[in-house]
């Protein structure tokens, strides 16, 4: 039964993305506004309108896994396992078999093992006989199962697959499971690996910027894809306090709603996104003016950035102009299934270290995108953040985090 006293806090984080192989590297990139969007080398993108993405470069899986393991792991599974390892170590959880029963795994997935499956499919179409093991990681819950298996985590297990809001929703559901006493600790977040299919897919929709993406900027032409993983360790607050764990922040509330509008386009007035943001604020017991920073969905597409700005203005009115809003996708690209998790991690790091990550490369907004998009990182005391994730199908997730020290 839900116990109002059971609250979920974040006690560990692991990150791998184009601007950082570790949480510490990611933090320093966020503070410096480092952009990881470069020429794609993972596959041939001749003929596509863009050739850039936030790819994880000079990555050698053998630095992390042995050959036998790698036969059963697609690129995304590797990223997720690397982030999980760091997150569990960061949380300094003593993993004994008794604990394992209370620790669950709930991850978000995007294209999942698509990179392996498309290699299989291409070989097949070219008349070759591909290795069947390439299809093993095809089920989106594969990475979730690998994390649970490797660390003997025997609590509730679920994989959320709502495209670009998957891993944000995984954080929400993980917090719910902790509140209800279904688990004491949850590993949540998610992963994404670049694939030809998703890259070609977004190109076919004509929403990929040929240049590195420029969220909220008047010159923006679309998104840049990215890849990586973020794993957050959510823990029941009393337990975390008792063992003296580092607390990055508390999951105060969330909303996951549907716009019921269109499979790819957001409802254009922003009223639906605003409704979902309001529901999340209400759930968290937070007034709009208490929010200090918004980590925007901010993909860099013409429509998303307009509608999101409208939604923020709808909720905050004139106060919207005083509220820092930034898109970390300007640095890490749009990591789809990993996006919500990476952005939750960015929000928590911002709160914990007292700074606002920038929308790197932002110069000039437009008539609708006229908020404070934070072109350079700045120092700031942040008590409460909102992280937005909007997906294909109108799946919107809003997460509210609060700084621990002020909310005891």
């Amino acid at each position, binding site marked *: 039964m839900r116990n109002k006293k059971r609250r979920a806090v974040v006690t560990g984080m692991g990150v791998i993305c184009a601007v950082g192989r570790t949480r510490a590297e990611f933090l320093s990139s966020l503070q410096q506004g480092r952009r990881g969007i470069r020429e794609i080398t993972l596959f041939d993108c001749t003929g596509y309108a863009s050739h850039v993405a936030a790819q994880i470069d000079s990555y050698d899986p053998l630095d992390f896994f042995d050959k036998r393991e790698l036969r059963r792991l697609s690129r995304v599974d590797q990223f997720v396992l690397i982030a999980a390892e760091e997150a569990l170590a960061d949380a300094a959880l003593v993993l004994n078999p008794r604990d394992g029963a209370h620790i669950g795994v709930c991850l978000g997935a995007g294209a999942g093992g*698509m990179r392996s499956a498309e290699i299989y499919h291409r070989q097949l179409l070219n008349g070759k006989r591909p290795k069947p093991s390439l299809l093993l990681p095809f089920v989106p819950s594969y990475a979730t199962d690998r994390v649970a298996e490797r660390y003997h985590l025997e609590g509730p297990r679920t994989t959320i697959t709502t495209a670009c809001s998957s891993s944000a929703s995984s954080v929400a*559901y993980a917090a719910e499971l902790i509140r209800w006493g279904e688990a004491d600790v949850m590993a949540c977040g998610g992963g994404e690996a670049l694939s030809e299919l998703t890259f070609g897919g977004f190109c076919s929709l004509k929403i990929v910027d040929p240049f590195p993406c420029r969220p909220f900027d008047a010159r923006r032409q679309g998104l840049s894809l990215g890849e990586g993983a973020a794993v957050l360790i959510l823990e029941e607050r009393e337990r975390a306090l008792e063992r003296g764990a580092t607390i990055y922040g508390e999951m105060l509330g969330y909303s996951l*709603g549907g716009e019921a509008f269109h499979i790819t386009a957001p409802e254009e007035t922003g009223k639906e996104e605003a409704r979902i943001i309001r529901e999340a604020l209400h759930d968290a017991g937070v007034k709009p003016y208490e929010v200090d920073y918004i980590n925007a969905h901010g993909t860099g597409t013409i429509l998303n950035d307009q509608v999101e700005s409208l939604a923020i203005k709808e909720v905050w009115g004139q106060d919207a102009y005083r509220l820092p809003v930034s898109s970390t996708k300007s640095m890490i690209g749009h990591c789809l299934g990993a996006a919500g998790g990476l952005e939750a991690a960015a929000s928590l790091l911002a709160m914990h270290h007292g700074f606002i990550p920038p929308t790197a490369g932002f110069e000039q907004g437009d008539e609708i995108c006229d908020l404070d998009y934070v072109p350079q990182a700045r120092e700031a005391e942040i008590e409460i953040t909102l992280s937005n994730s909007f997906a294909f199908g109108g799946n919107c997730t809003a997460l509210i985090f609060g700084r621990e020290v002020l909310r005891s």
Partner: protein
Amino acid sequence: MEAVVITGVGVISPLGSGKEEFWQGLIKGREGCAEITAFDTAPFRSRKGAVVTGFHPKAFLPPLKIRRLDRASQFTIAAARMALEDADLAIGKDVSAERLGIILGSGFCGVVNSEAFHRGQVMQGPSDLNPILFPNTVPNAAASNCSIELGIKGPNSTVVQSFCTAEAALLFACQQLLAHRADAIITGGVDELSALLYRGWNELRLIAWDAGEGERSAPYDLKRNGFIPGEGAGVVVIERDTDARRRKARIYAKIRGLATASGAGHPEEKVARTITGALKRGGIETIDFIDGAGNSSPLVDAAEAQGLRLALPDCYRDIPLSSFKSMLGEGIASGGMRIAADLLILERGVIPQTINYAHPDPFCLLNVVQESLQAPIETILHTGISLDGTYMAVILGRANGVS
């Protein structure tokens, strides 16, 4: 704790569309598995699938939409419409759009579109790719298209958890209701069979094949050698008990226990843990029928039988048990269609049989129902098994039974 009840059901299955056709198929032991004609199975060891036939989307969708939406979305929209109608729940009247949610298990939905899109990339190259296909490659396309078509604005999510996909969605949905994030939620599972998926399962040697007994889905049978891939949608409407009673809804079942276990190795122990956990949660002592997860694969069925033995040592050989996967085949979200069957069993007091059961297996000594039988049913145990390490047990009780 507040109780969650089920008030509506919608099914699109290989046995027929709508609860009545589905039910007739179940109790008459219709074979849902047949030779696949939708794609070429010549390169494979197996040829059969439990494919949905005779589904007429026109009853549920305008012609233009039928052309634009993939099968998984069509199944979902049709099943959800039926379930809402069955629950007598009108959006905007009995429940507001914002308080109605959809949390669905997706069994490889979108793979058909991924396959078609990627084929275009490989065969034709980057120019002229079909922009209609790509947005429907995502696993949440079915639930999201359904939310768009029906105007559902509440909690919206899609879940995949290997062979426990529908049960995992049910748990998520129940939690959203108990947290009062919605007043009614459409939940369950939808699977769509595709050539690439069939190929994958064939390559991984998971599909039943003809080793002398014919190619059959034969759960708990000594000579079983794999499952038969299937497709379909089974969705239900869940509400909090108090809300359902207030609006005088017909209540099929109360969710009396829901437990999950996970971990590698010793699947029978995990199965037993979920059953014991679900019984304990519901304070339940007797089970009248077991809706088994046995899917005709050697390991799953044996793990289930051993798990039942551990959890219910005194009665596991007496309680009638049936696996509808003998008729419906297996999809990772087929738990949705099975829950639909469970509700009809509670309502009608008839247990459908397990077909193709001919040779008892000494490792599966269970009371497998071989001819549909009448029996008053108050409680049903529904198991979910994924050897990837997720196990679930759901106990459904008749609403006017012991509470």
